[in-house]
């Protein structure tokens, strides 16, 4: 859909998924940080934080299924396909634009269109987060809910330890992604433009 330089990029199901995901992950980060701060020094009561973390984790997991199914049955998945051509060159060019070019009159190298919803760098990050980090954090999260299922030892190192460290390290990486994601969203026609799109679904070219 296209009207007056506007593209209907974000269908309703995607906006619902994005909204739930955003709230869920913010919840997970706050409660996760609180638990990481220690059992007694945490700013949310420990058992409250654990319960909130578990519930948010399950909500985000179910919501992730919505994302997967939505991408399977609609053609939204095509935006996530990484092509081997210019595998490194294209995202590097985009990074160069963000770091240097945009301050020196360079035009965005990969303007968004009906065929291109994400710029190459953005696409790489989304693929890594949504198809690598999120599945692993979901798996390790459920493993920690049922710790008796985890291998007792992996090469003499406690399986629970590896699972817990992997889970929270990925949590940290996703938190960093979220900060960058929100900041980069403010680079648009105007700083608030992209945030309006989250609600309306329309993107200004």
């Amino acid at each position, binding site marked *: 859909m296209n009207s007056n330089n506007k593209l209907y990029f974000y269908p309703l199901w995607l906006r619902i998924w994005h909204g739930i995901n955003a709230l869920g992950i913010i919840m997970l980060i706050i409660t*996760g940080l609180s*638990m*990481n701060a*220690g*059992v*007694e020094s945490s700013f949310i009561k*420990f058992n409250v934080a654990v319960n909130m973390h578990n519930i948010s984790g399950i909500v985000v997991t179910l919501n992730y299924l919505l994302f997967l199914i939505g991408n399977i049955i609609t053609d939204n998945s095509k935006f996530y396909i990484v092509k081997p051509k210019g595998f490194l060159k294209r995202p590097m060019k985009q990074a160069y634009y*963000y*770091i240097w070019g*945009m*301050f020196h009159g360079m035009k965005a190298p990969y303007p968004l269109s009906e065929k291109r919803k994400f710029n190459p760098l953005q696409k790489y990050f989304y693929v890594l987060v949504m198809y690598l980090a999120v599945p692993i954090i979901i798996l390790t999260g459920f493993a920690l809910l049922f*710790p*008796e299922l985890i291998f*007792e030892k992996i090469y*003499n*190192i*406690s399986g629970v*330890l590896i699972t*817990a*460290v992997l*889970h*929270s*390290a990925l*949590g*940290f990486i996703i938190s*960093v992604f979220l*900060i*960058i994601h929100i*900041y980069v969203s403010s*680079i648009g026609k105007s700083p608030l433009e992209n945030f309006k799109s989250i609600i309306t679904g329309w993107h200004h070219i």
Partner: protein
Amino acid sequence: MNPYYILDTVAMRQGVHNQFDCTDCHSYEYSTYPHKAELKLEPLATCLDCHAGDEATAKYQFEKIDVEFKKSIHYQVYGENFTCSKCHSQHTYRPIARTSAQVTEIVKFDNNMCLACHNDMKEYKLMSGRNNPQIRQIHDWLPNQELHFDNVRCIECHTEVVDGLMVSHNIEGRDKASLKCAECHSTNSRLKASLYKYQNLQKRAQDGSLKNVLSNESYVIGTHQIPILKIISYIIFFAVFAGIVVHGFFRMINKK
């Protein structure tokens, strides 16, 4: 024959006193059978009769254990009737916490010493005259009860921690038991004072593997179990934060 009078000879041969003959400790008259009934009343040596001041077993610190034990609820309530052998069978005891490389094996062996009475109606009543406490119900408050029972010794929460001893024998009453998660799940975990401290030291001495050097905080939650990851995460976070501030600053200047 009374089954309590039959000794598990295999277990005996695996135990610490395996090199002894029965008559080294018991009356020589036991060498005839049937044994005389009054032999049951023979005075037997206590652990300290042999081990106090004994250089060969000095590393086990029997005298220090005795001092700690005298403060324990077992001694306070039952006095001299509560002998070492009530928990440590002189026939089959193995110093498993020192010899085993498996925490779970140590935990099981040690906990069975407690559970032999505390989870056995007959044995408990015989000593105390009261019905035995319901172990599972009492510990209902403990999250992941099964996991804790398999991996943590009863004594980790039920004794006062004494740094110099592997196991403090001052087993305290239930009102003094540790009920706080943070006492174990924190950087200065009380577990380190006993079992895991020993395990870590032993392992590091054996293989010096990187994991043991990097991580001695296994009972802290998440990445902070590994101190270096904590530092790296702070560096990444501040780098990202600084990057955003600088980028935002130049965007603002550029706009004007």
